[in-house]
Structures are given as structure tokens and as C-alpha cells.
């Protein structure tokens, strides 16, 4: 059990770390099972690679398993083998049932957060000059129309945010609007959640279709205000 014990302890420790330690770090949250599975898979791969680097370590690693499966019947080994033979398929069956049985929960489905914009919105540039006045005006429009959900600090934590799923975008996060061109934001604000293409489903965003409320010029100014307020820059090619 010597050489096999360390890998088992490592796997258990990794699971406990991912399940209970990482989520409790300030600013963190529980990891979805898909991510835990991915990291455990990598850990298991690492163990197999390391333990099979030499003949001795390979024998020490596989030896107990090999002896258990093919060794002489002594000390009730036969009973244990039968136990594994029965328990292992049951475990696989239980897992399979758990992952395929119908439940009252909505199905897990990868939603594309940033689907591709329609052709007519690509290549548009902000027609409003970037002046302090226009930025201030944009921030004012933002405060009036956007901040109830996206927050006064541009962090997606407005007073109404808690009621929505998916939650409003956090513009201060460098992985959101900083990755996008201004024309993309123009499309999203103008068309809202109902204008998302099919890959944006399920649970489309509750973002209103602002084109019915706001003129294009205001939208462009809001975009300017958003980037400035969130201390981000739009993606450009110059």
C-alpha cells in the first residue's frame, strides 16, 4: 500500500482543497463540479505519469493493484475481489443514473456569454467625439438607465441586480468589456437580451432593448461613460 497510499492521499487532499478550501478564500465562490472534475483528472494524470517514470516506481505503483487482481487467493482476497466486481459496476451505474435521470432542475447548458454580433454591427466606430463633456453626459445617462442593474460602481451590483439570472455584467472586471470593441456594446445595448442569437440561450439576459427608448447618440455616449467609469479601454486595432 506504500506507493499507492501517497497518490490516494494526494487525490483526497486535492478534492478537499477544491471543495472546501478554495471556495472559502475571500472573493472566491464554490467551484462547479465540472471544474473540480477537470482538476482532479489532471492530478490523476500527473500521478500516473510520475509513478511510471521508472520500472521500480511503476512496479511499486501498479504492483498492489496487480497483486490484488491476479495474486494468490489468501486472507479473504477472493471475497474482496467479488466485492469489487459487484461494487464497481454498481458505482458506475449509480453515477450514470445520477447524470441522466430526469430531475426538476433546469438542464445544465453552456451559454455563450459573448456571441458573435450581426454583420451590420461589426466595424462600427463611436461617432461621438471623446470629450470630457460627452463622457460626463454618458455617465449621467448610465446613472439613469444602467446603474440600477450594473451598479453605480460599474461592478454589476446595482440595487436590482440580485433579482436577475444571469446577473448583470461587471464592467470593472478586466475580462468583460475590456475584451470587446465599442461596436459590440452598441449592439448589446441597442438590441438587449431579446436580440441575442440562439447560442446566447438558455436564460437569455434580461437586458432591455434600449433602441426603443434611447437614441443612438445617447447609447454611444453611455458606452464612453461605461469604459471611463470602469477604468477600462475598448478593444481597438490602432
Amino acid at each position, binding site marked *: 500500500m506504500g506507493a499507492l497510499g501517497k497518490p490516494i492521499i494526494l487525490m483526497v487532499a486535492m478534492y478537499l482543497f477544491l471543495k472546501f478550501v478554495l471556495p472559502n478564500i475571500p472573493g472566491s465562490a464554490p467551484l462547479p463540479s465540472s471544474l473540480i472534475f*477537470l482538476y482532479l483528472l489532471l492530478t490523476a494524470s500527473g500521478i500516473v505519469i510520475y509513478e511510471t517514470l521508472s520500472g521500480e516506481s511503476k512496479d511499486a505503483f501498479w504492483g498492489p493493484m496487480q497483486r490484488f487482481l491476479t495474486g494468490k487467493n489468501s486472507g479473504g482476497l477472493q471475497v474482496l475481489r467479488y466485492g469489487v466486481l459487484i461494487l464497481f459496476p454498481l458505482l458506475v451505474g449509480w453515477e450514470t443514473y445520477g447524470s441522466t435521470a430526469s430531475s426538476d432542475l433546469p438542464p445544465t447548458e453552456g451559454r455563450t456569454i459573448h456571441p458573435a454580433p450581426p454583420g451590420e454591427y461589426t466595424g462600427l466606430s463611436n461617432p461621438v467625439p471623446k470629450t470630457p463633456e460627452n463622457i460626463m453626459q454618458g455617465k449621467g445617462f448610465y446613472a439613469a438607465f444602467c446603474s440600477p442593474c450594473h451598479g453605480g460602481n460599474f461592478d454589476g451590483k446595482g440595487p436590482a441586480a440580485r433579482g436577475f439570472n444571469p446577473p448583470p455584467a461587471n464592467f470593472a472586471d478586466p475580462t468583460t468589456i475590456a475584451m470587446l470593441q465599442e461596436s459590440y456594446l452598441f449592439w448589446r445595448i441597442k438590441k438587449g437580451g431579446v436580440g441575442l442569437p440562439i*447560442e446566447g440561450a438558455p436564460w437569455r439576459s434580461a437586458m432591455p432593448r434600449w433602441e426603443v427608448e434611447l437614441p443612438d447618440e445617447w447609447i454611444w455616449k453611455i458606452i464612453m461613460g461605461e469604459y471611463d467609469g470602469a477604468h477600462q479601454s475598448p478593444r481597438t486595432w490602432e
Partner: protein
Amino acid sequence: MGAIQQGVGTIQRVLRAVRGRGGWLAVLLLIAGWLALPSIGLAAEGTSAGPTEYRDIPYIGSRNLVWIVAQLHLLLAGFVLGVPIFAWLCEVIAWRGGEKRYDKLAKEFTKLLTSAYATTALFGGILLFLLVSFYPKLMNYLTDVFFPSFLLYCLLFLLETATLYLYWYGWDAMQDGRKKTLHVFLGFLLNFFALFIMIVPNAWATFQASPVVIAEGTAIERAWAATWNPTWWPINVHRLIANVVLGGYICGAYAGVRYLSVKSTEEREHYDWMGYVGNFIGVFGLLALPFAGYWLMREIYQYNQQMGITLMGGFLSWLFIIQAMLIGVLFLGSNYYFWLGITYRIPGSEAKYRRSMLLMLISLLFCLAVWMTPHSLVASIEEAQKMGGAHHPLLGVLGVMSAKMTVANLMILITFMSFVMYWRAGKQDTAGWAKLGKAVMSAVLVLASLAVIVLGVWGYFVPAIVRINYFSTSQVLIVIFVILTIAPLTALLLKSAKTTTEMVWGSMPPRAGYALVLNAVMIILLMALMGYARSSSRVHWHVYGVMRDSSPYAYSPALGSASLIMGFCTFFFCILVAFIFWVATMGDKAKAAAPPGKRELPHGIPAMAGGAPEERQQT
């Protein structure tokens, strides 16, 4: 329908005519008529009013059939165009350095090449017929744009074939003196034509994704403008490197399989060495491949935001997580092979390097974990609510390019250091400046790794354009600097080093052979995956923004369905390559089995069918 009825009527008339001449003839004709029915059905669509735009085929569908044949052709072509590069380099090494084993290896690579060449051409021909049959409107348009380059391609193909014949059949006859120089020149020409055979069709494929259309000018001017489109050179560079990687890993897998099956010590040593060379070539290309891929994606994104987002943020973005997994397995597999080499080929080295191997393995797995972490996670509603959305508040930052580029560069550095470790194993430095040299190398490595990480983190706080144009480029340049500094310094150190443990070839365990096969399967899957991504990024356009796909197949298949086709292409390609190599080595096995007096095979045995021309004993 008219055509079908006409066809059935014809069959009935023929049956009446042969009545009385024996039932067997009627049955035969009936079978022939039944087999011909689908073709009548296909032709039926062509008889409708107006020019035919599309034809279809029952069950499998025209798009799937073209997809499979195109992918197989591309994989075979990648092998056929990648192998001559290192076959020729091996020949040059043998020619200049006098090591005959490199010449033998080059010849063995070329044998695989000649065997695969005819099958590649065959699949190219099938693909052309299918495209002309199923997509006449598109092919008519492409012919109109590219007619001069079609002719050029035919000429290049003739030249490539003639050169390959001369190169292969002339191998034994051109071994000495000036004849060898001529043979090496033929190898150069082979690669020269192969390069153009690759970049000319690349223009057609890239034109479909990023077209440049000019209405005026001569046919040559229009073809030239269409050829020089924004993604042409990025694809050329990316495919050239990828072909070398594919060729290297497939040759490695071939050597791995032979290594597992041969009995004699001499052959085990040879195929162990060949496997090592194959893996080295694959790794050598793999180090440069992510840079080329990044440049290609950057050009696509800049060319069209919609296409860029479709690939990197839209519905195809999940493919890049699978890509990360496949590349990760490649990196792990290649490093594992190096580490096994240290343990088994250089006895006694394991204890010295085991700790370093563990550190490298942990670093590789950590980098891989970052690379494989998606920005938007697969989560149930409950899990998403706990996270506050699809992005994890802490790990979400790992899902964007700044993190991915950083870990890709670090993985390249680690793999390079694995190779350096293998290179140094079993040798003792004797140079007076060895201590200083090693300190400089360590400092360069540590500082470079830190610089790559700092730039990666800093990348989150600067505008995207600064990150893409300066930070990512700097990371790549830093890694290149490390490789260009440490490789020559190590070579200099080893020049005067004392060999403490001789390399023992043929002592690798069977799992080393399986690792080589795994690497080959991974690179094939990877090419199938990325082929789909590149092609699908055009969405419902044959020629992006110019010619819309109006066929019933103008939709992107679900990723699960697409993965079935990719899996099938990979499986079928592996079977095809195994068959080709099996046929190619039949002659060798026959020779080995024949009694000494009868070992010579008849002259003129067709190489294309897999037989090797008689080999003179050179070693």
C-alpha cells in the same frame, strides 16, 4: 422525377430485351440498375430549370462527405508536405557529417512519404470531383477567380511528382560524390515545390474566409489580389509548422509501433532512435506552433470582429478548451517520452533528475489547468447562482487570453528545458567556465519565466491592443531569446564534456512506444478539430460576405455531431496510415525472410504500391 422514371423505363426495356437469355443476366442487370438509381437521382436535380447550385447524396449528405474527404486529404497532405522537410535535413546531416545512419533514416522517412503520396493525390482527386459535383456554383465562382492559379497548381504537382520519383528511385544510384550533391539538390527542389503546392491551395481556402475581390483587371491580377488576402500568410506559416509537427509525430508513431513489434536488438535500437528523432521533430515544431496560431487568430479577429468572436468567444469557443486539452496531452506526452529516455537510455540518471522531472510535471499540470479553465464555466443553475453567474469570481480571470498566452509560453519553456535536461544527461562538464555558464543559463531561465508571468498579469490592466501588440509579442520574443541563448551555450558546454554514461538505445519500455502513438493520435485529432473551427468560422457563407450558402446545410452542426465526424476522420486516417505503412514495409519483411541467395526483389517494384527499392547495405 422525370429522369428517374426515364431511367427505370430504360432498365425495364433492357430486361424485356434479354428475357430468354438466361435469368442470371436479368439479375445482373437488375442489380446494376438498382445500384445506378442514386446516380439517376443525383442527375435529376441537374435537369431542373436554371443552373444547378447544389447536389446532394442520400444518408451521409454532401457536406459531411466533402468534410470527411477534405479532412483526410488535408491530413495526408500535411504528412506528405511535412516529411520531406526533415527527411531532407537528415540527408544533409548525413551528407555533411558523414553519419550514414542519418541517411538511412532519411531514406526510411522518404519511403513512408512515397507510400502516402499516391493516396494523398487520390483523395485530392476525389475531393475535387465531389466539390465540382456537389457545389457547382461555388466551384464555378472559385474557378473564375483563381483560374491562373489552378493551372499553376497543376504544373507544380507535375514538378513535385517528377522530383519525388527522381529523389526516391535515385537514392541508391546517387550516393557518391557529385551525384550525392545532385540528390541533395533534388531534395531541396522537392521541398521547394512542396511549399508552393501548400501555399497555392491555401489561397483558395483563405479566400473563402477573408476574401479580397476586385472587379477590374486581368485574370492574373484578380487571382493575385484574391491570393494575397489577410489570412493567407498566417495560414501558410501555421500549416507549414503544423505539417512538420504532424509528420514528426506520425513518423514517431510508426517507429513506436515497429519498436514494439521487432525482435532483433539491431532493429530495436534503430526504431528506438527513430522514435526519438520523430518525437524531437514533433516537439521542435510544437514549440513554435502556438505563436503561429496566435498570429493567425489575431489576423482573423482584426479582419472581422464577427468571425473573431465566433471563434474565440462565440459558439466555437468551446473548441479551444478541447484544443487546450489536446495540446496539453501532446506536451505531457512529449515530455514524458523525454523523461523516460533519461531514465531508461541513460542508466543511473533517474536519481539525479527525478526531482527536476517532478517539478516540471507539476509546473506543466498547473499551466495546463490554467489553459483548460474556461471563462464561462459549465455549471448547473444552482452552481451558477452560488458563483454569481457563469464566471467564477476568482478563477474567471484564468479564462482569457492573457492567462492562456502566459501558460502556453511557460509550457514551451518547460518542454525546452526537458530537452536540455535530456541532452545534458550522462555527461560531465569539463570546461573551465562551466559553473559560470550554468549560472548564466539559470539566471536567464528564471528571469525570463518571471518576465513572462509579469507581462501576463500586467496584461489585465492595459488596453487590449497594448496586450496583443506588445505584451504577447514580448512574451514570445522572451521565450525565443531563452531558446537561442541556452541552446548554443549548452552545445558549447557539451562540446568539451566527458560522457559518463553511454546512451543505450533499444532499452525503452513498451509504454514509450504507446506514448509516441498517443502523440500522433492527439495531433491528428487536433488538426481535425481546428480544421472544423477554421471552416465553421465562415458560418453560413461559402465566401465570407460575398457568396452565401443557400444549401440545406447552411447551418453549423452541434459540437457533439461535429466531434463525431472529427473522431471518425481521426480513426479512419489512423487506419489508412497503418495500412499504407503496412504495405510500405511488406517488401522489407519479405526481404528479411527470404534466404540470402534470393533476397533481391525484382527491379522496378512500384514504390507507390509500397515496395522499397532494393537497399544497398550502407551501414
